[in-house]
């Protein structure tokens, strides 16, 4: 008897399920970053607003990468529901604390997906997820560095802090190819 499911797709159902959950998580992240960008914009943190608009786009790209992968491989990608996200924050520190928490949640989720891939013997998807692992190392670093800067820069130098936060990058990422 033919294996019709395998003929349809190389992705097994448990992997398809967790990838669809990840698409939703990435799009929720995108929505959260957009809310943060809006908050920064209306509170005068123009540079941080720019940083979060960019982050929002990036998260959407992460979701779309998985969406296209599922579609290309014959699996089913579902357009997820995006719940309401917080629109107000206590201050810049609170915004970046939320960022770090969100990025940790995403990292944990990526690690769980790799666990599922290994259990199902799906080495192709595991290879794809390695890109996300590297990306999360960078995202978590940036969030932590921003919180450090908020602690280090005096509270009366708001403009300088805003500018500095938006310029944080992870140039020394050990996973980046030379």
């Amino acid at each position: 008897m033919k294996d019709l499911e395998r003929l349809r797709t190389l992705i097994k159902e448990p992997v398809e399920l967790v990838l669809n959950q990840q698409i939703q998580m990435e799009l929720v992240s995108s929505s959260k970053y957009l809310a943060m960008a809006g908050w920064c914009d209306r509170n005068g943190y123009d540079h941080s607003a720019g940083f979060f608009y960019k982050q929002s786009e990036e998260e959407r790209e992460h979701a779309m990468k998985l969406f296209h992968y599922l579609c290309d491989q014959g699996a089913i990608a579902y357009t997820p529901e995006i719940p309401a996200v917080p629109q107000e924050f206590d201050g810049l520190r609170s915004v970046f604390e939320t960022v770090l928490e969100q990025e940790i949640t995403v990292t944990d989720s990526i690690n769980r997906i790799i666990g599922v891939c290994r259990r199902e013997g799906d080495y192709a998807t595991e290879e794809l997820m390695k890109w996300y692992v590297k990306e999360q190392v960078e995202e978590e670093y940036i969030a932590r560095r921003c919180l450090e800067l908020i602690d280090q820069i005096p509270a009366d130098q708001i403009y300088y802090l805003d500018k500095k936060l938006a310029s944080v990058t992870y140039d020394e990422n050990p996973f980046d190819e030379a």
Partner: protein
Amino acid sequence: MEGSVPASYQEVFRTDKGVVYQCDKTNRLILSFWGSHTPLSARDFAQFRRMVETVNIHQMALSTDAADDVEILTLPRSERCYVLTLCEVIHLRELLSGANLMLELNSMLRECGCATLSGNV
């Protein structure tokens, strides 16, 4: 109904209420339930199975609202739909889950290089 099953149909799973066949000629799974034969692609079969799995049977059992007495399930890419009571949803779920288990077993046998369920490749 038994006599009218084409020779290319292989039985995947059977319960008292229905049968799921596979046709290797057309690459279709045939759902035989409630007196009707519905050929489905592997993708549509998976989608329909998930649709049946997500029916809120607790609400159907506990609600006194007449709208919760039946569930209307539309088959993917088909004009046919099932209007099912709680018991029928459970019977359909049992049939589809059993068929899915057998299809997974078939995949596992192929992956480990063993003969497939029917003994041929």
